[in-house]
C-alpha cells in the first residue's frame, strides 16, 4: 500500500530539495527505471525486436549474421536540457485549500528538476508573468539543483500573465532540442496561448504543458451573493454562484477542451491537474506519458 504524497503534506517538509527528492524518488522507487531513456553514441546492449519498436534502431549487421532482428540500446542520455517554466502571475496564487496553484507547480517542477539532475541531465528554471521574471539556464551539477530549489521555494505570485510576450522572450533564450515543461493555469484565450506555444515544437523542442487548476475553479463552490474580484485585473463582478454554476462549469470545460485539442494538435503534451491531486499521481502520470515516448 503506497502512501499518498499529498501536496499539503509535502508543504510541511522544510526544504524544496527534500520535497523534490520525495516526489522523484517516490516515483522511482516504484519503477526502478529511468524514464529519461534517450539516445547516445555509447552503445549499451542488444535486445530482441518486438513489434512496435522503431526500425531506425534495428541492428542490420546482426540481422545479416544471424537472420534475427535485434534492437540497439544505448547508455543514458547525457545531452537533455530541460526547462521548468512556471507561470507566477497573480492567478496562480489562488487556492481553496492549503496549497496554491503556484506551490503545486513548484513541487512538480522541483521533482522533475531533481530527477533530471540525478540522471545527469541539465535542468533549468524560468518563471514568468508579464515578462520573464527569472531565467536559470540548465545545468547538470548538484549545486545548480540547490539553486533551483531555492528559487522554487521562494516563488511568489504577482502581476498579470502575458504569454505572448513571455514566450517570445523564452523562445529567443532557449536552445533547440530542449524540453520545456510549462506550469500554468492557462486561464486565457486558448487561441492566444496556442499561438504563443506552437512554434516551440517546430524548433525540435519537446513541450509539456501542465494545466494546474484549483478544484474551486472547475465548479463554483461559493454560496449566496458573491462579488468576484479578478486577481490579475482587479475587475469586479457580482453574481449568485448557485445560479450560474452550471453554465460556468460548462464554459470552463469548453475552455479546457479547446486548449487541450489545440495544444495536442501542435504536438504539445497536455496534463490537466488539480491541486487536490496527489503529487506522486500527477508525477507518475507525467512520467508514464514520457516513458511511452522514450525508446
Amino acid at each position, binding site marked *: 500500500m503506497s502512501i499518498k504524497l499529498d501536496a499539503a503534506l509535502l508543504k510541511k517538509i522544510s526544504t524544496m530539495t527534500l520535497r523534490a527528492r520525495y516526489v522523484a524518488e517516490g516515483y522511482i522507487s516504484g519503477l526502478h527505471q529511468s524514464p529519461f531513456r534517450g539516445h547516445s553514441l555509447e552503445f549499451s546492449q542488444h535486445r530482441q525486436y518486438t513489434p512496435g519498436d522503431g526500425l531506425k534502431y534495428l541492428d542490420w549487421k546482426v540481422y545479416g549474421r544471424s537472420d534475427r532482428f535485434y534492437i540497439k540500446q544505448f547508455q543514458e542520455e547525457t545531452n537533455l536540457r530541460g526547462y521548468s517554466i512556471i507561470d507566477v502571475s497573480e492567478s496562480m496564487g489562488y487556492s481553496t485549500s492549503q496549497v496554491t496553484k503556484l506551490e503545486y507547480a513548484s513541487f512538480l517542477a522541483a521533482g522533475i528538476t531533481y530527477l533530471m539532475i540525478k540522471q545527469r541531465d541539465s535542468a533549468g528554471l524560468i518563471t514568468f508573468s508579464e515578462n520573464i521574471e527569472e531565467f536559470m539556464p540548465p545545468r547538470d551539477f548538484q549545486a545548480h539543483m540547490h539553486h533551483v530549489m531555492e528559487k522554487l521555494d521562494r516563488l511568489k505570485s504577482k502581476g498579470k500573465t502575458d504569454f505572448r510576450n513571455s514566450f517570445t522572450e523564452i523562445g529567443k533564450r532557449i536552445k533547440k532540442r530542449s524540453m520545456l515543461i510549462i506550469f500554468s493555469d492557462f486561464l486565457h484565450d486558448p487561441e492566444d496561448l496556442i499561438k504563443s506555444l506552437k512554434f516551440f515544437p517546430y524548433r525540435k523542442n519537446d513541450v509539456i504543458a501542465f494545466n494546474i487548476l484549483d478544484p474551486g475553479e472547475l465548479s463554483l463552490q461559493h454560496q449566496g*451573493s458573491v462579488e*468576484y474580484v*479578478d486577481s490579475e485585473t482587479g475587475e469586479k463582478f457580482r453574481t449568485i454562484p*448557485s445560479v450560474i454554476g452550471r*453554465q460556468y462549469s460548462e464554459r*470552463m470545460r469548453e475552455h479546457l477542451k479547446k486548449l487541450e485539442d489545440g495544444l495536442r494538435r501542435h504536438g504539445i503534451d497536455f496534463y490537466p491537474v488539480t491541486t487536490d491531486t496527489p503529487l506522486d499521481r500527477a508525477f507518475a502520470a507525467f512520467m508514464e506519458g514520457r516513458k511511452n515516448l522514450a525508446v
Partner: protein
Amino acid sequence: MSFLNPSFLWLAPLAALPVIIHFLNRPKTKSVEFPTIRFLLTATRKVLRKFKILQLLLLLLRVAFILMLLIAFARPVRRAPLADEAVDNIILIDTSYSMSFVTGRDRAIDSAKRLAAALTDNLAGRFALATFNRKLELHIYPTDDKNRIKNAILDIELSPYPSDFNNSLNELAESDIVSDPGAKNIIIFSDFISSGFAGGEIPDIENAEYMLVEVTGSGENVWIEEARAGYAYEQTPIEIICLTDATETSQARIDLYIDGERVRRKEINVSGLKELRFSHTFEYPGKYTGYLSIHSPPEKNRIAPDSVSYFTINVRPRINVLLVDGKPGYTLMGGESYFIERALSPRRYRSPASGRVVTARELIDTDLENYDIVYLLNVSVDTDIERKITDYAASGGSVGIFAGDNTETAAYNRILRHLMPLDILSSNPASAGTSIEPYEGSALDEIFSDSSNQIEIKKLIPASGAAGLEPVLKSGSYPLLFKYPSPDGIQGNMAFFASPLSVKWGSFPLSAQFPVFVHKLTSFLAGRDEEEGLLYISGEALPLRPESRVRFETMWEESEADPQPYLPDSSFPGHYFSNGEIYAVNLQGGGESRIEKLSPSEIRRSFPSGSHFIPYSPSLESDMLNAVLGSEKSSFFLALAAAFLVGEEFLRKYIKRKTTGADQ
C-alpha cells in the same frame, strides 16, 4: 364586490410578508478574489436575468396566494341587487291559496317563509313585512328588529283567496310603508300564477325596486314536463310519456312509481328536450296513483326534488261486448259483426273491449250477466229475444241496435218498445229492407225540445274530423244514443243505428275513424265516460291511431276560483306540473281547467323595468338566497389560492433544480 367578513381585509398587509422576508433573507454579498472572471462573464448574464424573473414570479405567487386566501376568508360576494345597506327592505309574501301547492318537500308558502327568514338574517338595512292575496295586509312597518320580522314571518298563514298583484301592490303604493322617500327594495315571494295579474298593471313605486322571488315551479334544469298516457283498462298497456328539459347535459334517472312501488326505471342523459316512454300494464281494475320522478346525484347537477309529475289512473274493467249477428256471412267480411269485432279487438293490441260474436239463436242460451253491452246487428227479434234483452236492460245492461234488412219495424216497435223513447218509423218502401228511418224530423224535434222527458240524447258524430262519415251524417241517420230513466225500470244505455253497416255506411267501417267511433259508442254504452270525481284516461285513443293520443281527460277545477271545497286530500297528490302549468285536482267537482304560471320573461314584463326575478328551485334555496344577496365567491378565491400555492411549489422546485444542478 362586497364582503361578508370584511374584517379579514385588514390583514391585507400580510400579503407584503413574502416581500419583506425576501429582502430580509437577501444574502450579504461577500467579496472573493478569483483567478479570472472571464468565464463568469460569459456564463452569467442571460441566466441571471432569467433567474431574477423567476424569483420575481415566485414572489408574486406568494403574495397572490396570501391575498387570495385573505379574500376567500373575507367571503366575497358578487355585487347584488339588494346589497345596499341604506334601503328599506319590504318583504311581501303571497298567501293566496295556490301557495299551498307542494313543491317537492314543502308547500310553496313554507319555502317562501324559510327564504324570507334567511334573507332577513343576511341582508342589511331595515325591514318591513306584508302579505297579500286579494288585497294587501301590512304586518310590520320598517324596523331594525330582525327577530320581530322573523317571528312575524313564521306566523304567516295561508288564505283561501286568490292573489291579485295589481290590487295588492297598489295598496302597497298608497300605504305608509312606502311613504319614506328613501330607496326601497320590495321583495315579493310568490308563485306568480297568471290569474294574479288579471287586475292590470303593476304600479311603479317611486324609489322602489322589485325583487321577485319565485317559490314554486319547475326544477332548476331538469324536470318532467308532461306525463301522458293512453287509456287504462285492465291488462291493457298504457304508455306514459315524460318530457324532460335541461339547459345543460346531465345524467338523470327517471322512475315510474305506481302505488308507491317503482315499476320502471330509465337512465338517461338529459340535454335539451327529451321524450321518454314508459309502458305499463295494469293487471286489475282499480284506482291507481303514480308519479314519475327524475333524479340525479346533486353533486353532478342540480335537479330539483320537485321534478315529480303525479298522475292518477282509474283502471277500469275491460268492456265485454256480445255481438249478436242477425245475418252471419260465410265469408270473412260477409257479416255485420266483422267490422265491429275488429274495431273492438284490433290485432296486435290489447284492447279495452273484447267482443264475442253469437247468432240470434245462440243469444237465447248465452248468459248476459258477463256482458256490459249487447249489440244487435241486423237481428230479427222474436219473443225469446225480446224477453232476454228486456231483462238484460232492466238489470243495467246496455244495448246497441244496428238496423238492417232483417229489421222489422213493427216487431221492433212492439217487442222493444220499452227500450226506445219513441217508436221507429217503418222502412222506406222504395228500398225495403235496406234502410230504416228511425225518426222523422218532427219526432226528433219533439225529443230535443221536450225537456220534461228526461231523455238525454247525444249525437255521436264528432264536430270535426268527419271525413269518411258522410253516409252516417245523412239526414235521419244520426246514430242516436239515449239515456233515460225508463218507467219500466230500464237502467242501461241504448243506441240505435238506422243504417246497416255493410250497405249504407260505404267504406266507413274500413276507415281509421271507425274504431274510434265504435270505441266511443262502446264507452258510452258501458257508461265509462260518465264517471266523475277521478282522473281517468279515456278510451278515446286507440292503438290503431297512436298519433291521436290525447291528454288526460281530467276533472280539474281552478283552485283559485272557488276556495272552499277542494282541499287536496293529503293522501292524494294535489297537483302536477305539465308544460309549466299547475293543475289542481278536484276530487269532487267536474270539468277541466288549469292554473297557468307565467314564464320568467312574462313575470319580468309584468313588473316595472329593472325588476329582478329569481327562479325557484327547492333544492337550491341557498343559491337563490345568493342570487338575492349576491353569490358568494369564496370558493373561487380559495381555488385561486390553491392554484397559486401549487404554482409556487412548482416554481420553487424548478428554480432549486436549476440552481443545485450547478453543484453537480
